[in-house]
């Protein structure tokens, strides 16, 4: 019987070795110690990931899914895997347009999600398309709780990173958005003195409403609304935000003519450096709270990141 015990020991040792190997391979210290924002190149659409210094992760939009190309599956999930994440604290869909929400079905199916965050919509816009319903039920299948946010709400990502909702306004209070785009979640992300403004597909009306409310929108980095469409990023908005870096998520040779020449000129006038996913690939911003670095998958910052001090 001693050899039977030896046999069992042998099998057990092998299994333990396999499990130990997986565990060691997946082990990573909680958080990389820096704030990190990555805008992925998903073509004509949006998908970005925020990582807090303590290792919290939040996905802002999940990229488009066309009939033959689901960027949620092809780009977003592999990115999260590469970064070693097994869980998203939150998945945010700024609005239901398929260039932002299409890939979310693959996300619901591919990684654990703490909560799904959606804009609180006015009654007029609250009817969901069948595709949107299908995406939402993919999250319901995994028992992911849904939270609806509007101006005044916020998300804390650990102790140091906060996301403040600037738009849409709560239904029935002041201005009411009339389009899905204008009802996009607009989020101000703060880490130390670093500020990042995410705009979804919000257009000029939403921008004006935010400015009219007297909210502080100054930010080092601005994600340009609606892929650089001329209906967003008004002159007033540019002057109010004063971004050092402007990020545009846009598809190569897209049929919409995004980003528009007017928007690029406005940004040039206020001296913002424009980076766009169609030319620069994925863009990563890392901050320690007082300065930040910019890296891109393709030139110019692929070999050596640029360091920028905040004010």
């Amino acid at each position, binding site marked *: 019987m001693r050899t039977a015990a030896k046999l069992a020991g042998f099998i057990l040792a092998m299994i333990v070795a*396999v499990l130990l*190997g997986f565990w060691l391979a997946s082990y990573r210290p909680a958080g990389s110690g820096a704030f990190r924002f990555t805008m992925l190149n998903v073509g004509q659409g949006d998908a970005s990931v925020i990582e807090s210094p303590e290792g919290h992760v939040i996905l802002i939009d999940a990229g488009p899914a066309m*009939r033959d190309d689901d960027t949620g599956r092809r780009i977003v999930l*592999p990115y999260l895997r590469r970064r070693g994440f*097994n869980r998203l604290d939150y998945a945010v869909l700024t609005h239901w347009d398929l260039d932002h929400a299409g890939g979310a079905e693959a996300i619901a199916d591919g990684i654990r999600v703490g909560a799904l965050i959606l804009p609180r919509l006015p009654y007029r816009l609250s009817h969901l398309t069948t595709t949107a319903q299908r995406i939402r039920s993919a999250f319901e299948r995994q028992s992911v709780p849904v939270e609806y946010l509007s101006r005044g709400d916020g998300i804390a990502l650990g102790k140091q990173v906060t996301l403040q909702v600037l738009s849409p306004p709560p239904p029935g209070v002041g201005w009411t958005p009339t389009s899905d785009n204008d009802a996009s979640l607009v989020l101000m992300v703060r880490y130390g003195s670093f500020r990042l403004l995410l705009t979804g597909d919000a257009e000029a009306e939403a921008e004006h409403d935010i400015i009219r409310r007297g909210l502080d929108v100054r930010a080092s980095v601005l994600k340009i609304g609606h892929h650089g469409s001329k209906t967003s990023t008004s002159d007033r908005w540019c002057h109010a935000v004063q971004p050092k870096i402007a990020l545009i998520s846009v598809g190569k040779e897209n049929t919409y003519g995004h980003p528009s020449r007017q928007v690029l000129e406005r940004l040039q006038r206020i001296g913002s450096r424009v980076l766009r996913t169609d030319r620069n690939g994925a863009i990563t911003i890392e901050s320690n709270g007082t300065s930040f670095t910019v890296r891109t*998958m*393709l030139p110019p910052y692929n070999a050596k990141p640029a360091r920028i001090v905040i004010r």
Partner: protein
Amino acid sequence: MTVTGRLIDEPEAHNGIHIGTLAVGVVDGPNGITHRSNGLLRIALPMDASKQPPHIGDMVRLRGQIRRFRSPTNPGESGASALWERRGLFARLNASGTTAWSVIAIPRAPHYRLAAAALGLRSRTNAIFSAHMTSDQAGLINGLLLGGRSDLTGRRANELTRAGLAHIIAASGANIASIIGLVLLLLRWLRLGDRLTASVCILAASGYAVAAGSQPAVVRAAIMASIFVAAPLFNRCRDGASALCVAAIVALAIDPANIADPGFQLSFTIVAGMMAFWPSWSALLAHVLRKDIAASRSRRSIDIPIRMVLNGVALSVIAGMTAAPITLQIFNSAPVYGVWANLLVAPAVTAIVPIALLVLAFSHMAPALSGLLCHLILAPVAAFILNTATIFGGEPSSTLSTPSPSWPVVLISYGVLGGLAFAARRATWPIGR
């Protein structure tokens, strides 16, 4: 530009487009001048209901735009460019419309006919299994038998991967071993000579390799099996390590680009792992079973099934262990429940290949019997494997994300595994002698 060439692989139909690889023969220049040329291009042909779909070996003429492969623009994105460049492909030619391409001749060269016949065989076997079970079950059985996931739906294949069971639908040495085992059994019963037996075994192994689409892992296994079977005829002893080396040399001689191919790397490391760990394992197993049998004679009847189950388990544990460093580096993810899913499924997988072969053998002679085997054994076992995959791979949390281990870490892991194998060998050396 307009090019004419031969399709060297079976085009995949994907969302209204046939995508395949073309060996270019002629390029049309300006003013109607044609130039002989050679090189490989990926081609995309829009589907046309009025045309026969293109197949491997077909001579195709197409007009369109040539483009470089996109290189990855996101961290973690698997770049099509790197994958294809390893195989000597640098560009893709998209036919500019359904009228911009035509099949101008069908294959005559024997190896294309062979490949086409293998594809035909595959769809025939799938049809035989499908007659008695659901398409998912039939797809799984066909995958177990001939390798590949082409007969499975994307969701099922995905679940198998996430449950750590993807290897069961990769045709490889296990299948070759089953087939040679069956052939040997049959020939012993017929009392044929050694030489004839060996030749039939080699034929069966090569036939299977062709039927399974000549994937690198199968070709490797067929070469090794042939060397093993033939060795005694030349008064040589059977040495696994040298057989493996010969197989590697042959595979690299056929296509040196193989060395960068993950499938090739995995196939060889796993087999090397088997060779390192198997002797200690079987020594232990033989010793324990012999002891138990000596203790009670009645246990002999269950000796074979026990051996099969335990061997299946050991096989998947060793394979998982030796493959891990490479798979982690490529896929950045590991199946959390892989060990348990494999423990459950391994015995079923071992049993299924011989029975599937029986079903195919009887499908013409005794269709009722083959139907019965399908209903009684194949369908339930396939359902069991598929459901196990759903249980262990259906949840988002069933994969663990792992940052890519760097090459030094991969090498160190193999060093550790080698040490482990050595220790196991030393611990079990006296036993079973």
